[in-house]
């Protein structure tokens, strides 16, 4: 009888073994949850990256951030008139063909103020969209915009506005902490799992619960995993630009000598070497040199503490009259750590930096309202050079734009209007409304099953197409 019971138990346990014939999904860690699956509303990085897998836009970007056809190719008939044609027939994941009507409906929905899409502002100069025939449509603008085509990356939805895309992946599951996509070509599943704690992400990787961790991992943990044979650390130059912003309305910081002294007093190379474990490179401008509009030749800012001290002395600061500044940052532990190291570096040239860290809402509110002396932030996912207008044109101070430090240089305004972006970048590097810090690398740790994963420069997940 006992033997029979044991046998029954063994049989039951065997029956409960997972079915190995079904391939386990490739699992990717997310440090923050996606908030919006509708491309008309998504603005956070995670939602945008997942939506890029599911939806196709009219255009996408190549490696140098030039727009290339995704669904449609284009011809500029006049500065305010563009013609778009299908590159090839496309289908939504439910098998329904993507039509010109779908494209028009998506854009008209975004342009409708009742939709309250955050993407409306960038497209608000679209005057009308006309269907020419089943394969062609025209877009008319109210004003010329040389970068117009670059703005057409919005994911196209069916006329019904159901959340179905025509991208390489389709949704299988949208949970609270787990989101599953299926690759349309071969039904391979990819599971995105929320794991906010970096140490736990590493532990999950070690247990085999994760196949890919991309970014948002302290570099000492990257180095730790790099030593393990089971994992491969992939890294490539990134384009996300970190900077130190000055408030030029502040009487102290309106003095160029003070800004130059701070720029020369920060040892960026040491920060990159020790805090980033060399997974970053010094930045010089908002756009990296690999961008088609990026600055190729420039005089880099060098660490010159003695010259920095001289400049501060010239500006009237010394031991009796030390320079005291406040530095605002978020509550992110790594950002606070960076701030602390910069504080120590600047102390060597006689600058006393008081670090103030706030939750994101308060921090961002303060920066936007000009309630700061120094702050640090990063520009993420910048694709088009009109960012210079938004960030450095004198008319684009908040609330109209992001010229938060109130930088005013009529020459720069003029060059921005003339779209002479190289001159803009040269001048900004001289005037230093920002201290360019670094471009962080894109870093991914991959397990055995995801060895073929490829990193992209902006951190999107298109590299999942290469995973077996």
């Amino acid at each position, binding site marked *: 009888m006992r033997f029979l019971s044991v046998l029954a138990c063994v049989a039951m346990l065997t029956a409960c073994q997972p079915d190995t014939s079904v391939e386990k999904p490739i699992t990717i860690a997310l440090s923050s949850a996606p*908030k*919006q*699956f*509708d491309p008309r*509303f998504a*603005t956070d990085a995670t939602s945008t990256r997942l939506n890029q897998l599911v939806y196709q836009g009219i255009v996408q970007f190549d490696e140098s951030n030039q727009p290339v056809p995704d669904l449609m190719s284009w011809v500029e008939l006049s500065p305010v008139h563009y013609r778009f044609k299908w590159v090839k027939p496309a289908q939504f994941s439910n098998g329904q063909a993507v039509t010109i009507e779908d494209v028009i409906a998506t854009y008209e929905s975004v342009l409708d*103020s*009742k939709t*309250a899409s*955050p993407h*409306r*502002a*960038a497209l*608000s100069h679209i005057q009308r969209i006309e269907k020419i025939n089943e394969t062609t449509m025209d877009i008319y603008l109210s004003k010329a915009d040389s970068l117009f085509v670059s703005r057409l990356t919005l994911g196209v939805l069916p006329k019904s506005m159901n959340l179905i895309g025509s991208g390489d992946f389709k949704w299988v599951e949208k949970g*609270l*902490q*787990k989101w599953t996509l299926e690759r349309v070509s071969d039904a391979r599943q990819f599971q995105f*799992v*929320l*794991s*906010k*704690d970096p*140490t*736990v992400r590493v*532990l*999950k990787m*070690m*247990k085999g*619960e994760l196949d890919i961790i991309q970014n948002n991992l302290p570099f000492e943990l990257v180095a730790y995993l790099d030593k393990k044979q089971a994992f491969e650390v992939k890294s490539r130059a990134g384009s996300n630009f970190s900077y130190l912003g000055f408030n030029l309305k502040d009487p102290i910081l309106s003095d160029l000598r003070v800004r130059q002294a701070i720029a020369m007093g920060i040892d960026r190379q040491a920060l990159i070497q020790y805090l980033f474990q060399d997974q970053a490179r010094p930045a010089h401008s908002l756009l990296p040199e690999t961008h088609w509009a990026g600055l190729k030749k420039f005089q880099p800012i060098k660490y010159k503490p003695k010259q920095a001290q001289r400049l501060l002395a010239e500006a009237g600061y010394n031991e009796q009259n030390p320079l005291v500044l406040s530095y605002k940052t978020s509550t992110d532990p790594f950002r606070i750590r960076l701030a602390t190291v910069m504080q120590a570096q600047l102390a060597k040239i006689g600058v006393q930096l008081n670090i103030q860290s706030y*939750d*994101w*809402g*308060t921090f*961002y*509110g*303060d920066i*936007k*309202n000009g309630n700061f002396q120094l702050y640090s932030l990063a520009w993420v996912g910048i694709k088009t050079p009109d960012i210079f207008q*938004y960030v450095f044109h004198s008319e684009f101070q*908040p*609330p*109209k*734009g*992001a010229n938060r430090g109130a930088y005013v240089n009529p020459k720069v305004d003029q060059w921005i209007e003339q779209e002479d972006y190289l001159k803009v970048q040269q001048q900004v590097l001289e005037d230093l409304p920002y201290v360019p810090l670094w471009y962080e690398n894109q870093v991914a740790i991959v397990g055995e099953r995801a060895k073929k994963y490829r990193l992209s420069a902006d951190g999107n997940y298109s590299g999942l197409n290469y995973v077996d």
Partner: protein
Amino acid sequence: MSAYLLSRLFSAVWVVLGVLTLVFFVLHAAPGDPVELMLGEQASGADREALRESLGLNLSVWEQYLTFLSGVVVGDWGQSIHHAQSVMELISARIVETAYLAAMSMVFALLFALPLGLWAAKNVGRWQDQLAMGISLVGISVPNFVLGPVMIWLFAVVLLWLPTGGNETPQSVILPAIALGSALAAISARMIRSSVLQTMQSAYIKTARAKGLSEDKVLWRHALRNAFLPVLTVLGLQLGMLLGGAVITEVVFQWPGIGTLMVEAIQTRDYPVVQGCMLVISLAYVGVNLLTDLAYAQLDPRVRLG
């Protein structure tokens, strides 16, 4: 009893109203604009206004407050600003998980604290007492953000006994419940010990001993019931706290609870979600306190409610 209940429920309404009012005005006074956080700085003034209007943020703070209160009364807690879901949907999906984790933490805390506290009390001054109190000191001292990853490493990565986190299998709750309940277990064990020791000095315990009852019977039948009263107060307060969400435990173990939802909502100035979470949390506190008082009356006949 029913009069007492009615009066408590009546006062609970005022407590909840007070909490909601305070949270509402503090949140709206804090710097940071949800529309700005949603649309970014690039949006035009017209777009900002359109969104403000659609979210009801164009109304005066008092109008928003009254709209919010009337919504609470009819069960409409509004739409999340950042998630494409209603606040009720967002919270109801998580409150069940939070309540489950809180209950499991409480069970763990009691299962651990009761024997440990009694063992220490029974062996007061000996090595067993010192060991038990040493263990409880560790429980109080080790923070969750250390205990959590260490437990994951040991039980999930090295021993492969349990999952690293999530809420998919029945075993998933074990590690977060232990992490969350460890401090409570430690505090309770200490309280049980001191409370039992105090009770054991009482005259009625001496009488019980004089009657020839064994030490175990004295402890379990006579001392424990009285000794448990102060512990009950602590457990009640702690349960309210656990129901309010445990952000660190939720983050470490990827537990989809209300704590992280609220913290994220505060960061993104998602007013309706913060207000909804606070409503649930204040109701939980009030409810648990009421239950604690009722339990008090059950355990100690000298306590008369009303």
